[in-house]
């Protein structure tokens, strides 16, 4: 029985597992809290895709920037934004990371260079290009990691952004989470070319497709891409094959896919397969798992408590932060 999987230490493997479990359990709690109307608005769960955020974030450094979509709880947590302030944000509390202004779809955090949570499909790709342009102009050798779904690929902004990043050789790491559906629209119904990495290559951009259910593969691919970007300053593109286990949002009746398809994918889920692999190789014992689960549970309980105890921002502050300098 080996104590490593392809160069991964036990410690590291358990960290990755914990990162994924934190996201999974956090979101399961969110779904509960949504039913309890503690969380409102749109809630898009990341469940099934945790390996991607967990793996990619491990490849980034604090100096790097992150841009994501409305399905970004996983990215926010994996990037290191405190769970308590994320939860408080989803409650709409003043103690939330965005003081309750953004909610589930708009998590921002200056400390970790997390530039949101964007709810316009493909709308953050140009931002990522611009962040990377700033890095280049400031010679900072930092990477901008830009997450988006495969639905964004059809948007004009995808095209314009990839071209600009490739043309100007900007340090953007494009990360397409191909979960096969954009709301109810299957990839084959939205793209004449369904091989997304190949599409990306048409911009003269190095691109590859990775198994997004395998956290180690994700991490390795992201690390290699980040290294390549730091080397030549130019963009890289990774497509992750993945699946969303839950409805698109809390309003989705899932008329567009078979239950069997979902079940099939669940068997390939990033946590269940990783746990199995770790157990098989002896890196994980039942006690480890229990202790991680317990730790995560405590963190979530504390986050919920923090959010519950949070305060409502006074109505008199409604117009705060529309502008930086206060208007006359």
């Amino acid at each position: 029985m080996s104590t490593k999987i392809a160069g991964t230490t036990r410690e590291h493997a358990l960290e990755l597992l914990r990162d994924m479990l934190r996201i999974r359990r956090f979101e399961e709690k969110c779904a509960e809290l949504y039913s309890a109307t503690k969380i409102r608005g749109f809630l898009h769960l990341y469940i099934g895709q945790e390996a991607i955020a967990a793996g990619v974030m491990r490849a980034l450094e604090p100096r790097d920037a992150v841009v994501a979509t409305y399905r970004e709880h996983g990215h926010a947590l994996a990037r290191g934004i405190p769970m308590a302030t994320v939860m408080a944000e989803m409650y709409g509390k003043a103690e939330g990371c965005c003081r309750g202004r953004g909610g589930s779809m708009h998590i921002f955090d200056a400390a970790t260079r997390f530039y949101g949570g964007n709810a316009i499909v493909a709308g953050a790709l140009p931002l990522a290009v611009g962040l990377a342009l700033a890095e280049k102009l400031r010679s900072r050798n930092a990477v901008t990691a830009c997450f988006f779904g495969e639905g964004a690929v059809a948007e004009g902004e995808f095209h314009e952004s990839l071209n600009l990043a490739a043309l100007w050789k900007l340090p953007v790491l494009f990360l397409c989470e191909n979960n096969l559906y954009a709301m109810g629209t299957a990839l084959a119904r939205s793209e004449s070319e369904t091989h997304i990495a190949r599409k990306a290559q048409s911009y003269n951009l190095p691109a590859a497709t990775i198994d997004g259910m395998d956290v180690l593969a994700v991490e390795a691919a992201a690390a290699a891409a980040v290294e390549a970007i730091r080397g030549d300053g130019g963009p890289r593109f990774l497509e992750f094959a993945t699946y969303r286990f839950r409805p698109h949002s809390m309003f989705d009746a899932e008329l567009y896919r078979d239950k069997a398809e979902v079940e099939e994918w669940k068997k390939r889920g990033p946590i269940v397969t990783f746990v199995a692999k770790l157990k098989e190789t002896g890196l994980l014992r039942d006690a480890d798992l229990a202790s991680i689960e317990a730790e995560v549970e405590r963190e979530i309980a504390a986050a919920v408590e923090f959010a519950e105890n949070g305060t409502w921002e006074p109505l008199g502050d409604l117009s705060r932060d529309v502008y930086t300098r206060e208007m006359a």
Partner: protein
Amino acid sequence: MNAAARSETRRTLTYREAIREALREALSNDPRVFLMGEDVGRYGGCYAVSKGLLAEFGEARVRDTPLSESAFVGAGIGAALGGMRPIVEVMTVNFSLLCIDQIVNNAATIRHMSGGQFSVPIVIRMATGAGRQLAAQHSHSLENWYAHVPGLRVVAPATLADARGMLGAALADPDPVVIVEHVMLYNMQGELDAEPAAVDIDHAAIRRPGRDVTLVTYGGSLPKTLAAAETLANQEIDAEVVDLRTLRPLDESTILESVQRTRRVVIVDEGWRSGSLSAEIAARIMEHGFYDLDAPVKRVCSAEVPIPYAQHLEAAALPQPEQIVAAAKGLFGHG
């Protein structure tokens, strides 16, 4: 069918269902009509408006599009030029910013630029408005922008009858029509005749006659305004409620006639105050009803902030009945 027979067959349905019925009718009656947009088919529409229509009318006529607002709205314009009668659903006015160029620079101009050779009989539907805690990027009320553009007609159904009837009227119009459906209305329930009467899309409607003050509004603010009118009635103020219905061209006469009767006006508009449609209505009253006024027109609009997520902040940002009541009562300080 006469009125009596009609009323016998009245049934309860939602605003959402009323629009669905109108879509079904349009698809049934005119082979040139088709529906296209993101998730209108398999998903059933982001607000479930078109649920079931794919099964009924097939893929050729209920078309799921990729996430490509500019292309599919532009394709709708092209299809209209090519002899079809497309109904294009842009999920919400928020995303319509990605295709506003097509609407403004193509749909609205082609008839004029071509010297009258080509018309563009497209209908573009979109949800609008806030109230569901969807935060700053998903809560716009930008229908006033479309209402600014010559060549477009813009309508805002605020009742079940209009939800049911305006689509047909829009399809009968040879020019581009934008229909804005407020997200807070979809679940509104009410009664309709089994075979509802046609509606026009030229005139505003008086939803509640009154003598003391005119409350002008449209779309998602109508229920709030009617609620305010009831509160005012309890306080001995008899408010008349004008529902604009058509935001472009504005039915100025109905507004001005009401002003002549009541001599006082509050405009209720969920748009951000500065540059909202309420400004245009105030300006029209200034121009043509100035001498009829006993007090300056007041406006109840959204606060000038990106709409925040938190429930109490969102509510504070949007027009509420209490503010309408207060504004109306304020008009009786002067006069």
